[in-house]
């Protein structure tokens, strides 16, 4: 090991904390925050995107609920879902039926597919939370059409929260929250930029822990973590391996098991970009935090700065071209399509994305998973072969 600079001990400590928080399905940290004052709210949201700034400005903590992965045994959840429905909702129902989601004040279900949509109704039938909203963001991107509708949608959620804690989302408060989330996203992007050059300094799995931990804590705390991480990965450590660089795409909702990501990395793939925590990176660039109408700024940012996603109508801005751009931008060697089984949005997008990659001469490989898949041997072998074949040609 001589000659290899060891990673800073503090980084390992942060990673341990983040890993623990990321998979604490009791949401202990978030619940403790909620208990500290009466007018605080916990608002759970499913993948992918909700405007967290607004929840923050209403003195709420937006908590990302990304499924249970392989961290909770599904006993009841399977009785609510047929075998041909993806895994994410069964884990979430299991949590709702157990105590995991107690103390949450409300839930938001972003419009990503009919499973999530119907899950919002299941929460309503089961009377979970004091409010439950299907967050039907617009697929029309004109300011006065889709924009107006989106604004009204956000105002409905504001009023749901106001009824519970009486906190008014003033422009000052909202501008302040926007500023915090701008900083959060820009630091996340800075981490990805450093990883693009020095992927060995922070593995994809570690990056994942850091981002996912951010879903269960106040943004102020997460910003402090990100600042430290940025500083620590700015230091030279570790050693470059003879790995290929890949972009992982298709895992924006149900999350692949950590073992699967580790297998890809161990098979010789540096994951230099991905859509795992897409909601945390949603707005590309800053939202204006200096206006008298910060809600308008959030709406405009959604209409103009949303990333490529299966949740967003892509005519006029095709996902294939955007994926190719991302691969080029990250100097990646290939793409790993990695979608949850039975995920219609990801899987129906895949052929077109593959075609775009083919046309651009970008090699790709395809995996499917369940969040609780336990065997990775085949994935490791295939990712290894993929990596070797790229190395042969590059």
């Amino acid at each position, binding site marked *: 090991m001589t000659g290899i600079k060891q990673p800073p001990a503090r980084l390992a400590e942060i990673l341990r904390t983040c890993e623990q928080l990321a998979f604490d399905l009791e949401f202990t940290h978030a619940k403790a925050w909620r208990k500290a004052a009466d007018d605080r709210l916990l608002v759970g949201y499913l993948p992918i995107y909700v405007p967290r700034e607004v929840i923050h400005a209403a003195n709420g903590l937006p908590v990302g609920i990304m499924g249970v992965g392989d961290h909770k045994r599904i006993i009841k959840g399977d*009785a*609510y*879902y*047929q075998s*041909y*429905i993806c895994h994410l*909702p069964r884990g979430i129902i299991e949590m709702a039926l157990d105590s995991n989601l107690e103390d949450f004040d409300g839930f938001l279900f972003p*419009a*990503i*597919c*009919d*499973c999530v*949509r*119907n*899950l*919002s*109704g*299941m929460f*309503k*039938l*089961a009377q979970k939370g004091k409010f439950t*909203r*299907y967050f*039907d963001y*617009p*697929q*029309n991107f*004109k300011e*006065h*059409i*889709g924009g*107006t*509708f989106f604004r*009204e*949608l956000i105002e409905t959620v504001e009023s749901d929260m106001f009824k519970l804690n009486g906190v008014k989302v003033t422009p000052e408060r909202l501008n302040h929250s926007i500023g915090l989330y701008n900083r959060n996203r820009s630091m996340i992007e800075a981490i990805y930029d450093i990883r693009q050059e020095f992927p060995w300094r922070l593995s994809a799995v570690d990056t994942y822990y850091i981002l996912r931990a951010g879903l269960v804590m106040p943004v102020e705390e997460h910003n402090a973590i990100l600042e430290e991480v940025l500083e620590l990965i700015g230091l030279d450590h570790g050693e470059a391996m003879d790995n290929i660089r890949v972009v992982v795409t298709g895992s924006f909702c149900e999350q692949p098991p950590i073992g699967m990501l580790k297998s890809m990395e161990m098979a010789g793939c540096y994951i230099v970009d991905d859509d795992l925590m897409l909601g945390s990176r949603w707005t590309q660039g800053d939202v204006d935090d200096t206006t008298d109408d910060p809600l308008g700024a959030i709406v405009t940012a959604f209409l103009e700065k949303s990333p490529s996603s*299966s949740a967003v*109508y*892509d*005519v006029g801005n*095709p996902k*294939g071209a955007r994926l190719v751009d991302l691969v080029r931008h990250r100097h990646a060697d290939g793409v790993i399509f990695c*979608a949850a*089984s*039975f*995920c*219609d*949005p990801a*899987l*129906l*997008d*895949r*052929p*077109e994305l*593959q*075609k775009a990659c083919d046309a651009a001469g970008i090699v790709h490989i395809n995996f*499917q998973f369940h969040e609780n898949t336990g065997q990775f041997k085949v994935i490791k072998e295939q990712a290894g072969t993929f990596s070797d074949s790229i190395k042969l040609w590059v």
Partner: protein
Amino acid sequence: MAEVNEAVKERSMVIQKEMLAELFTELSTAKEKGRKVVYTFVPGNLTELILALDMLPVYPEINALQSGMRKKSASYIKDAEKMGFSEDVCTYVKCDIGMMLNGNIGPTGEKLPDPDLLLLSYTGCFTFMKWFENLEKLYPGVEIAMLHTPYQEDGRITEDQITYMVKQLEEEVIPKLEKVAGKKLDRARLAKMLENSSKAEDLWVKVLHSAKTVPSPIDSYFAGVYYMGPLFTAFRGTERALEYYQELHDEIMERQAKGLLPITPEGEMKEERFRLLVEGPPNWTNFREFWKIFYDMGAVIVASTYTKVGGVYDQGFRHDPDNPIESLARYCMGCYTNLSLPQRVDLLEHYIKEYKVDGFLINSIKSCNSFSAGQLLMMREIEKRCGIPVGFIESDLVDPRYFSYANIKNRLESYFQMLAQRKSILAQQPTEQA
């Protein structure tokens, strides 16, 4: 919409057959005659707008179900899978894309014209959006219009949602339709069509309501899918559809007056043993076999949710000639799969009471998350609220790999046994008390 029953032909069936033949002939000569062709979906369709602009609609879902009935879907689906579509996704999409890859030959054996416009109004199903995003790339350069229909997440249609829909229709959808049609929308003509729609809807509702009588003169599911065809697809708003529904209505009222039972492909049913409510679409690849299991057992489907995918007219909605665009918006938002789960459960409960239902059955479709996700909870709720026997079977719309005749038959037979037992217990109760 589907094959016309060969065994017993009522006049309404003959009319529908003629209507379909005329439509497919028009489609086959559309390009020569310069008629523009619009591909669009059934739930929340804007047929009157398309027809009022003299364009011809094509419904890829109908092509898919026809392919399923004509036993073509298996190979179409395989071809789409070879192209990269996963085994796991909606088979309607794959069947349609497979059909396109094989020359787009329609149900009459003639080639369907390519679309001049894709009209993506995705009511009640997110997959529709993915479907047309794919088609937009498979038909390079085709025009596409999108109408985003908000979900009734709060169990109602809000003013904000109506405004959003009307703006999209007025500022985006209608101008795009006009551009492709090469003419302005004649609003008076649209209003006249909506008036026709509304009249046909009245008649359709009377047909549906006839199943409230015991015994029911119709099967509201297996035969219902034929009955709903003209209203849910290319003919709503036309004089021809009105003629069809008048005829259908008169025939059924006559059956009802005479106390006759539903017509099946093997003639008239002799006995109504069970009155069922079915949730979920039927299977198309083995439609006849599937239906036969029911009528052989004397089971009549007196109400179904599938016959509400193109509009929940029996709950009062009508297209409104005095308020055309808003009523189109309300129509789109009101279709069955755009209802929230609590609304769906309430509707089921209502049907169980109104139609004197003995049992509730779910045909859960592998392809269709819009219907299927949440059905098991719906089943529990119905069991809890209504205390009637619930049954659950699984199949697919057009992928024959997911239709297991033996399995479904077994399950249904056990279910019918359960219904029979319950009926005999209920029948004994008053005697015992006496």
